[in-house]
C-alpha cells in the first residue's frame, strides 16, 4: 500500500496545498494547474451528483476507486476539501482526513496569523506535521 498525493482546496476552488509521494514523473506547473482544475471540477460535480440522487438526506461520498488508485475525500464544515490519493487497497481514510483537518490544518494553518484565511498554506510547520502524521501510517511508501 502506498500514498500518492494530498490536495487541499479552499471554498473558491483554489488548491491551497499539494504534495506528492512515491511518484516518479515530475509534473510541470501547467500540468499541475490543469490537474487542480480538473480535480476540483470533478469533486464538485460528483458531490452534487451524490447528494442529488440520494433518496434520503445523506452524507457526501468518502472515496472512490479505480484499479490503480483510490481517492479519499473529506470536507470540513467550513468548506475546505481534503483529498488523498492512495493505491486501491487502502481502507477508509475518513478518520485520518478528519484528523488532518482538526489537528493539523486548524492548529498549524488556520490559527497561524501568517496564514491568510483562503490563501495557500506556506508554513513549514504544517508540511512537517503532515509528513510526521503520514509516516505514522507505516504503509505510506
Amino acid at each position, binding site marked *: 500500500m502506498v500514498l500518492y498525493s494530498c490536495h487541499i482546496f479552499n*471554498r*473558491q*476552488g483554489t488548491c491551497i496545498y499539494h504534495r506528492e509521494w512515491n511518484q516518479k514523473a515530475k509534473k510541470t506547473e501547467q500540468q499541475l494547474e490543469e490537474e487542480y*482544475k480538473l480535480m*476540483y*471540477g470533478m469533486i*464538485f460535480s460528483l458531490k452534487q451528483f451524490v447528494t442529488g440522487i440520494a433518496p434520503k438526506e445523506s452524507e457526501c461520498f468518502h472515496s472512490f476507486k479505480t484499479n490503480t488508485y483510490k481517492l479519499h475525500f473529506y470536507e*470540513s*464544515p*467550513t*468548506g475546505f476539501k481534503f483529498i488523498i490519493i492512495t493505491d486501491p487497497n487502502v481502507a477508509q481514510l475518513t478518520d485520518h482526513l478528519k484528523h488532518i*483537518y*482538526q*489537528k493539523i*490544518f*486548524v*492548529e498549524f494553518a*488556520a*490559527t497561524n496569523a501568517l496564514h491568510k*484565511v483562503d490563501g495557500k498554506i506556506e508554513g513549514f510547520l504544517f508540511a512537517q506535521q503532515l509528513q510526521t502524521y503520514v509516516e505514522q501510517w507505516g504503509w505510506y511508501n
Partner: protein
Amino acid sequence: MSNIAKLQKVGDSTFGRIEKINSELLTMTYGSLVTQLLRDFEDTDAVNKQLEKMGHKIGVRLIEEYMAKSNPSAGSCKEFKDTAEAIAKVGFKMFLGFNAQVTSWNQEQTQFSLVFQENPLNDFVELPERLKTEGLFYSNLLCGVIRGALEMVQMRVECIFVKCPLRGDDVSEIKVTLIDYLKEIVLEDE
C-alpha cells in the same frame, strides 16, 4: 428542548478541554485595544465599525477552531434555530466561558437575540458620558466574530448590539439577522 441540553453539555465539555488564559489579561488587552482605537479614529461610529471589522477577521478563523474542537456532530445545525443555540451554548461557552440565552425570535425565524448577563470584556470598564451618548458599543467586536464565523459556514448574517450594561441597560443583547445562505461557488472556466 433536549437539543439545547445536549448543546450545553457539548459546550461544557469543550470548555473543560481547551486551553485557557487569564480573563483579566484578555479584559485589559481588549480595553487597551479599544482605547487605542478611540484615540486613532476619534469618531465613535468609526470605532464601532472598526471593532466589528476586527471581529470579522477573528470570526473567520475562530470557526475552524470551533469546528475542530467542539466536535459538532453531536449537534449539527440543520436549521437556523440550531445555529442560534449552538452559538449561545457552545460558541460563547468555549471562547468566553459563559452561556447566552436565545430569545426574541421573529415570525419567519430569521432573527433572534443573544442575551447575556456576564461579559468578561466589560469587567472594570466605565464609559465616559460622552461615549455613552455618542453610542459606543464597547464589545462590538463580538458582533463581528459572529458574522465572520457564520459566513464561513455559508450563512450571511447581520449582527447589531442593542443593549449593553455599560450604557445602563440591565443585560447585553446582540441581535442577529439572517440575510441569506451563500451558495457553493463553481469554478469558472476561462
